[in-house]
């Protein structure tokens, strides 16, 4: 039953993987610079790493906004966000998982009578606006730098493209890591206060309760990438194929930096140490940041035909998505509590911190251990299989070439 409650979050993770991986590897895969197989494997591995290692910061912020303290509540809030994302995508409206989950949490606050922390909310909303702007500010100097290097170094076009190709893989891995670190809060953030799992010891490292949830969420995102992102990546790639390879590299790097900045607690602590204000740990929309990056480069290159409609749609999404998600969440919570008679949470002062029994939590940790083991074994088998397949293909190709030239002679 507990695992069933996680399904809404896992579904949200799956859809995030299917859609948002294209922001990281879409241009590289669409332009055929990186194969989908390679991109999907790298993105999956690094999304999981980012989620487990660095996912706590942004989840903490969502927790401050509203600590959903019952599993039924977490399930409903995540489901409401997922429904909002699905319906808005269906009607081709610009939507972001980040904004949907924030709206859904506020809906929970309203339903349970908890007050919404306005300072956290204003921090979150400010980040949505500054994210794309920061993306543009990162993208412009990076673009200037890379264009100057290209022009002055007189590198052979093929060599340069191979550097870019490698850069896209490295930056893509960094982007996937940042995406996992920043956006895992959207997927699993609402479950963190409601779950209390026993610490999992994997020999070389141990995972806390939140990290185990992030691992599950990361696996859901990876599943989304592996099963459904190919089409999205190819569409994104063909839509922005007129972007040159270096612009693609710069936009992905700038976007990854923005996501990283808003999810790195160590960076924030460092700023505090040197007397600067801390960076808010907030999940931001990768799609909106990438639009900011592209517009930034466009402005630098002197483009005059900026599509203000897209900017308007993004701004409208900042208001519309949380409102719709909040309403959906409020009514869903009402239905779940009154019709299905499931506890969806109480006012923080009255609430019992956790509703889990240690035995149940221990069970999930045990199951997770086996899941991790099975995934590692499957990963090794698949990698070996593809390696052998690749070798066989190369050998056959070489033989056919040799036969061809022998025949010509």
């Amino acid at each position, binding site marked *: 039953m507990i695992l069933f409650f996680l399904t809404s979050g896992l579904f949200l993770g799956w859809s995030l993987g299917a859609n948002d991986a294209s922001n990281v590897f879409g241009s590289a895969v669409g332009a055929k*610079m990186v*194969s989908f197989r390679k991109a999907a494997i790298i993105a999956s591995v690094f999304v999981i790493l980012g989620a487990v290692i660095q996912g706590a910061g942004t989840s903490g912020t969502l927790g401050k906004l509203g600590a959903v303290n019952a599993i039924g509540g977490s399930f409903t809030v995540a489901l409401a966000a997922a429904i909002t994302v699905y319906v808005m995508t269906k009607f081709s409206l610009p939507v972001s998982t980040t904004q949907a989950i924030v709206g859904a949490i506020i809906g929970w606050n309203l339903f349970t009578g908890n007050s919404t922390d306005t300072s956290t909310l204003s921090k979150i909303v400010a980040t949505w606006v500054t994210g794309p702007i920061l993306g543009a500010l990162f993208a412009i100097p990076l673009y200037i730098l890379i264009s100057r290097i290209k022009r002055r170094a007189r590198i*052979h*076009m*093929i060599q340069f*493209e191979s550097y870019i*190709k490698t850069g896209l*893989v490295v930056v893509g891995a960094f982007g996937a890591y940042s995406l996992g670190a920043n956006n895992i809060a959207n997927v699993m953030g609402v479950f963190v206060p409601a779950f209390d799992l026993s610490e999992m010891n994997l020999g070389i490292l141990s995972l806390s309760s939140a990290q185990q949830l992030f691992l599950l969420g990361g696996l859901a995102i990876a599943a989304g990438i592996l099963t459904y992102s190919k089409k999205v990546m190819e569409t994104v790639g063909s839509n922005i194929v007129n972007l040159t390879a270096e612009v693609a590299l710069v936009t992905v790097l700038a976007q990854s930096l923005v996501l990283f900045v808003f999810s790195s607690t160590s960076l924030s602590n460092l700023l505090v140490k040197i007397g600067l204000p801390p960076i808010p740990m907030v999940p931001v929309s990768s799609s909106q940041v990438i639009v900011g990056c592209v517009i930034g480069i466009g402005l630098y290159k002197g483009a005059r035909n900026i599509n203000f409609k897209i900017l308007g749609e993004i701004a409208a999404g900042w208001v519309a998505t949380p409102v719709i998600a909040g309403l959906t969440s409020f009514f869903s919570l009402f239905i779940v509590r009154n019709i299905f008679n499931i506890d969806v949470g109480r006012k923080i002062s009255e609430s019992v911190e956790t509703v889990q029994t240690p035995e149940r939590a221990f069970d999930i940790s045990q199951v997770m251990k086996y899941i991790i083991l099975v995934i590692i074994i499957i990963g090794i088998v698949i990698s070996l299989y593809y390696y052998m397949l690749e070798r066989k293909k190369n050998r056959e*190709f070489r033989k056919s070439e040799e036969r061809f030239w022998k025949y010509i002679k």
Partner: protein
Amino acid sequence: MALFSRTTRQTIIKIDEFFDNIDLGILVFREGIRSYVKGDYESFHRHLSKVDALENNADKLQREIENEMITHSILPQHREEVTRLIDEMDEIMDGIKSSLHEFDIELPEIPESLFENIISLAETSANAAEELIPAARAYFRAPHTVREKLLKVYYFESETDKISFSIKKRVFHEMKELDLAHKAHLRYIVHHIENISDLAQAAADMLSIMAVKVIL
């Protein structure tokens, strides 16, 4: 990963080698025509077999470059254009080979008064093709310099046209002692030599557009 594989470097070397081949082919063509006109048939045949070998090698390199570009996904956004450019340049090599073979098979009789004109025609036509090579090399390293380099190709192509017109005019208007078949044969030979510069111009047109696309 492309950075760590040798394929990228090998492809660059092969493209450079391909251009070297074309460059050498043009040189041999110029010398071949000169030898034929001067009556040094031994040297002409040596040049002919050299052109055959160069053309074969160019074909092999062309195929290898195309294979590598496709199998290792090199320059995916410009691959089609680069392979077309290489194909156009290979056409020049084919033109050189077929032109020298025409001389070998048909043994055209060139009147002594046209010796210098034919040599000059071959020189200018070869110059047009020769000027294409640095422009094609520049496309890969400094695309913004391609168009200025191509100016020479257009200049030599128009010079070739002028020389060719003047030879044809002389043959048909002034050389009354030649019969019509001989005149037609000479015109055909002139057309063959002139064709090298036309092929260079076609490649230059393509290269010029390619360079603009890369710069923008």
